[in-house]
């Protein structure tokens, strides 16, 4: 089973939920796909034993073989190439704009002169190993990191997901938002947990994420973090759409303090181990229709 943890808004507690969910279950592989800020390792003390480059295949044009036909530039959906034919006996040029190239390979495949080769350019890296937390089973841990100065995170996320082990329970920590990186991270998930907070911003961006998941046809439920007495708007939004609220994490100083020290929620409050397990077990029984998990004393 692949469970991704996402949110429209950043900073709602995705990593808090993803890491504690991972620590509460057995036989887990954790994929940190938030490659612009891969910080799940702060909660999960990890020993990284392997590393590889994440690359983008970019076109290299052999200008001696080019006849300046312009086909590569025509087929480039991102305007990453400009063909400058020679004038007045000078030499022609093909300019490549790296920040626009998505590495799709259309230009190299469609060049009538076979003058273009795909060359790997490093844009990030993938690290893997084991994460250990006293009192929890060890996790297989994989994280992606986008290089400074690079703008295209989906290929790094793909590189992380190539390590995905179908035989394990896979927990994916997704980046925030609703655009390409999120889609890349959560694509193929059996279930998505959306983490939100009871603020107008949390609700606004939750609505965007709900729309995205509807389009991707991934079943999902909501966790309300920093839950307090102002939950009504989020609760109403979910009730109107039959979106299950899996559980609520109360707005408490001790949780914030533990977070600030990198202590996972399940370590601070072991009762969350049971809550996360109950969510997981209900997913296993009825995928797509996670029952709400309620415990005493929830706000």
């Amino acid at each position: 089973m692949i469970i991704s943890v996402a949110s429209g808004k950043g900073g709602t507690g995705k990593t808090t939920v993803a890491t504690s969910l991972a620590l509460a279950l057995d036989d887990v592989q954790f994929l940190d796909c938030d490659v612009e800020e891969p910080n799940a390792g702060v909660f999960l003390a990890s020993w990284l034993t392997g590393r590889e480059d994440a690359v983008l295949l970019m076109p290299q044009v052999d200008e001696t073989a080019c006849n300046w036909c312009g086909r590569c530039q025509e087929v480039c959906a991102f305007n990453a190439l400009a063909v400058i034919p020679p004038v007045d006996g000078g030499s022609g040029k093909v300019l490549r704009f790296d920040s626009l190239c998505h590495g799709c390979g259309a230009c190299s495949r469609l060049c009538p002169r076979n003058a273009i080769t795909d060359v790997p350019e490093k844009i990030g890296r993938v690290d893997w190993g084991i994460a250990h937390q006293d009192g929890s089973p060890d996790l297989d841990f994989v994280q992606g990191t986008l290089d400074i100065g690079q703008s295209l995170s989906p290929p790094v996320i793909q590189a992380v997901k190539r390590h995905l082990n179908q035989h394990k329970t896979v927990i994916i920590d997704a980046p925030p938002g609703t655009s390409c990186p999120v889609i890349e991270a959560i694509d193929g998930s059996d279930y998505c947990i959306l983490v939100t907070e009871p603020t107008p911003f949390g609700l606004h961006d939750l609505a965007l994420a709900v729309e995205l998941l509807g389009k991707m046809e991934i079943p999902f439920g909501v966790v309300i973090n920093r839950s307090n007495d102002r939950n009504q708007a989020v609760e109403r939004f979910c009730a109107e759409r039959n979106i299950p609220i899996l559980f609520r994490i109360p707005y408490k100083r001790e949780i914030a303090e533990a977070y600030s020290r990198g202590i996972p929620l399940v370590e601070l409050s072991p009762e969350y181990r049971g809550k996360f397990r109950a969510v997981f077990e209900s997913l296993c029984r009825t995928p797509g229709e996670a029952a709400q998990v309620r415990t005493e004393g929830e706000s």
Partner: protein
Amino acid sequence: MDGRFGRSEYLCFLDLETLEGTCEENTLRDGQGGVGIQLAQNLVRRGVKAVITGRVGPNAADVLDAAGIPVYSAEGQTVKQAGEGLRQGLLTQIGI
């Protein structure tokens, strides 16, 4: 004159001798990204000898520079004033 290059509303092609020419809508202006590169490339293919605009981005400037096409700024002027200005050497060269 529009302040923008790739996303300008219209393109005018002028004969510098007569200051006469034609204008057309810039059909690239609503494109997603790399619009300046695409427009610069089209201008290269159409064989223009100089470009007058407001400002030009670094990518489009690279393309025009590679093709040896100078770029001038005449933001806020009319097309006619800009053409006159270029003919009399009054415009500032920008870009690379």
